[in-house]
């Protein structure tokens, strides 16, 4: 179970509280829009959260596929140093580090995904298989000022002991078959 795996990796002195993670374009247990995959624009999806625990100073997000990777999970996206004042993420966090973060996310930075790239790259499950994409959000009790480019393991290690809340959503995706000839 994805959530259990995460919790085990981020053992804290206290049990993190749970908060709500939502998206205006995605729902847990339903298909992600193709624009969040290479079948479309391959931009990061919007997320929002509510019910953060008191004392939240910063947030971190990991998008991962526990059905891929060797060993799993395959990481699609890591974003951290997110100020606690942010109520979510807009669609399309810049993949080019030269582009500034959206307003309200100043200081946020991206970690290395499974390809080693500091950006969101969406799901492309093989064939027509259906994979589940776990968007985990961590509420932290400290502003950690972490360096850019951390891997998932490095991030989980860095936030260990600071996680006071967790929320997640898990939509799924299966690749849309391309048309025989998409040329008009």
């Amino acid at each position: 179970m994805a959530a259990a795996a995460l919790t085990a990796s981020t053992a804290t002195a206290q049990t993190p509280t749970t908060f709500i993670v939502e998206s205006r374009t995605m729902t847990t247990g339903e298909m992600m829009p193709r624009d969040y995959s290479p079948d479309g624009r391959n931009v990061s999806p919007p997320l929002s959260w509510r019910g953060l625990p008191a004392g939240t100073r910063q947030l971190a997000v990991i998008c991962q596929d526990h059905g891929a990777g060797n060993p799993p999970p395959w990481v699609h996206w890591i974003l951290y140093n997110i100020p606690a004042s942010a109520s979510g993420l807009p669609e399309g966090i810049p993949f080019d580090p030269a582009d500034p973060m959206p307003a309200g996310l100043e200081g946020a930075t991206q970690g290395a995904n499974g390809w080693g790239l500091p950006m969101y790259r969406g799901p492309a499950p093989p064939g027509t298989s259906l994979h589940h994409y776990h968007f985990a959000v961590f509420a932290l009790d400290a502003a950690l000022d972490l360096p850019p480019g951390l891997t998932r393991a490095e991030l989980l290690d860095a936030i260990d002991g600071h996680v006071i809340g967790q929320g997640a959503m898990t939509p799924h995706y299966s690749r849309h078959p391309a048309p025989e000839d998409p040329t008009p």
Partner: protein
Amino acid sequence: MADESRDRPGISRRDLLKSAGAAGAAALIPARAAADPPMAPPAASAPPAAAPAGPLMNLTANETEVLSAMVDRLIPSDDMGPGALEAGALRYIDRALSEAESDSVEAYRIGLAALDRYSRYSRGAPFLELSDRDKDSVLLDVQLGGATGAGVGFAGSSGAFFNMVKSHTWQGTFGDPMYGGNVNFIGWDILGYPGVRMRVSEDDQREMEAGQLPPARRSAYDFGQFQVGGGED
């Protein structure tokens, strides 16, 4: 004020260039990949001339346009200097397709057509009509293999096509000018490479370490010791 280092990638431009050949990922780099070259640019060198324009021998006009756009995004020109197109990488690729890489002509044709189909399929427009950001996003998907799909038409993984073009673009930008690229030593200037020289004096060494050694601007084949097809690598 935020620490500037947090607004930058975890990988520097120089690191990207150094790692691109080995890692294969993150090959979309600014032309100033080595923006802080260890060598000073020539003090009084003439502005680099652009590579010659005109049709290529081995590709159609449309294929040439798509390839040109791809090469331009792999090492783009920017406000700090010229990129792969100005360095003649396109001409280098065309020449290679006539000679040592002639077996790759079909792979180019299939790949360029697939690149354009994938662009239409995923972004709703031909590759040539995309913004630079969207071109980069498409090329990332091609590079990472995500553009592979029935109907799009890459032969095998899209990443294989990307790596072929990237490799040839690198060769055409940073290789010895004798092979048809690296026009006016543009590529070596990007890298800060001081050029081929048969003898390096102590003074040269000191100037090189201080980043003050003027580039030699000579091909290895300007020296009698080197001959094309000499059988030594």
